[in-house]
């Protein structure tokens, strides 16, 4: 803001581009919002940030205990669950966070100007930090269950980047809907639960009967979770055929979400 910035409401820049420009200009805000999320989340708990690691560990223990009889034959089943769970948690927490910060924190939008996409972006940013922390128990569990990390793990950040694109796109799209229909917030929670059980997170995809395979391939999350697990749990490089559907889905969702969000975002202050 050192040079004279000029705001002209009649400027004819496409909204999608304008928002991108502003989000870059306010990048320091992004950092501050992520920092606030991380700092305040566990402010009053004794174990603090450790909960980010303990939470998926606890889930993993329960799930592997309950389902070990059914899916126990899966090699390193706890590591299998945990690798899927942490990325699913990233997805569900980030999208929910994007919706909540826009709908409930939207009072801010009526008072001062900030790029509206900052809230969605920061929710995904916080999610990435939490996921990075949850990586610590994952490595420990993998070593303990005899499925140690291989060199292929260096591919995981690429998988995560695509996952984050999809998450941001969907988070922006749903938060736009939630501004107009508050019921969407509740509806989305139910959808998330169903979605998790329809995606091979806690069970291997091999248990799905052949006649339902088509259904599995219609689920965008299937490709993304697979691309995440391959370099980590399976320890092999993804093939091109495994890579491109996930990449196309992620980038497609991001574009759809971004354009939908920015086409409506000028109305938010009138609606929230």
């Amino acid at each position: 803001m050192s040079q004279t910035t000029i705001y002209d409401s009649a400027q004819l820049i496409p909204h999608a581009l304008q928002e991108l420009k502003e989000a870059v200009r306010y990048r320091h805000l992004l950092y501050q919002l992520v920092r606030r999320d991380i700092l305040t989340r566990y402010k009053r708990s004794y174990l603090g940030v450790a909960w980010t690691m303990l939470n998926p560990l606890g889930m993993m223990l329960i799930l592997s205990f309950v389902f070990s009889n059914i899916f126990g034959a899966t090699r390193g089943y706890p590591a299998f669950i945990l690798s899927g769970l942490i990325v699913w948690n990233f997805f569900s927490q980030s999208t929910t966070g994007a919706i909540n910060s826009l709908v409930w924190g939207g009072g801010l939008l009526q008072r001062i100007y900030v790029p509206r996409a900052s809230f969605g972006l920061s929710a995904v940013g916080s999610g990435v930090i939490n996921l990075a922390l949850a990586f610590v128990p994952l490595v420990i569990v993998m070593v303990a269950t005899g499925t140690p990390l291989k060199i292929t793990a260096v591919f995981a950040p690429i998988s995560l980047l695509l996952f984050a694109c999809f998450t941001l796109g969907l988070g922006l799209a749903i938060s736009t809907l939630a501004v107009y229909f508050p019921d969407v917030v509740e509806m989305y929670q139910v959808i998330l639960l169903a979605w998790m059980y329809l995606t091979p997170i806690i069970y291997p995809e091999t248990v799905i009967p052949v006649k339902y395979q088509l259904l599995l391939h219609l689920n965008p999350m299937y490709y993304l979770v697979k691309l995440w697990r391959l370099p980590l749990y399976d320890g092999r490089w993804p093939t091109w055929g495994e890579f491109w559907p996930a990449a196309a889905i992620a980038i497609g969702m991001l574009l759809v979400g971004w354009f939908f969000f920015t086409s409506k975002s000028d109305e938010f202050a009138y609606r929230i």
Partner: protein
Amino acid sequence: MVEAQMTQSEHAIHLEDVSVRYRVPSERIGTFKEYLIRWLKRQVQMRKFWALKGITMDVGRGEIFGIVGDNGAGKSTLLKVIARVLRPTKGRVVVSGNVAPLLELGAGFHPELTGQENIFLNGALLGFSRREMLDKFDQIVDFSELGEFINAPIRTYSSGMYARLGFSVATASNPDVLLIDEILGVGDETFQKKCEARISDYCRRGTSILLVSHNMATIEAICQRAAWLDHGEMKLMGEPGAVVDAYRHKER
């Protein structure tokens, strides 16, 4: 194009036939199902009302401009349009330079964070970069008179301390445009004097001020020009004494 550049250099704020329309649903429609049914029946009824109607005005550099009017006359909407919170339904708004909105002091403060952490968060919300905040930090703490409390969570602050910190951050950097909704009741009398001193100091350095107030004496005393808004329309614009007089007469 040449004309546009002229306006930018001469005026800090330039409004051209600005109108804002709110669409208020006559009843609240909260669910998809309901919306869908009504949409099919073409019954989504919106009560439309114009909060601002064809406002044209300019505020020069270093000018103090007052706005008077009844509640609901569109004064706050006008400030929001200039602060970029609302995009005008019609017309054009041009603001050159950075805007410090003193509409809501401490907007976005988080109660669990310390004063110091909140300074950086609030500064970022106002669009300052990290370096600018590092440069201004000491001065902000000084001005807020919070002393040791700067390291305590903000939930432990009194409302006066809260407002003082908010004012200090919002005005830390020399803004080109200052938007003030109602004169600030910040802290005790000494601190208010300090706020006023800072504002008039900025004014001398070329900051333009848009001031909304119900206090006619203030408007007459400090503004160079004033405008009277009534039901979203510009009733009168000109010399503050005349505007205040006209507004008072209407009331009677």
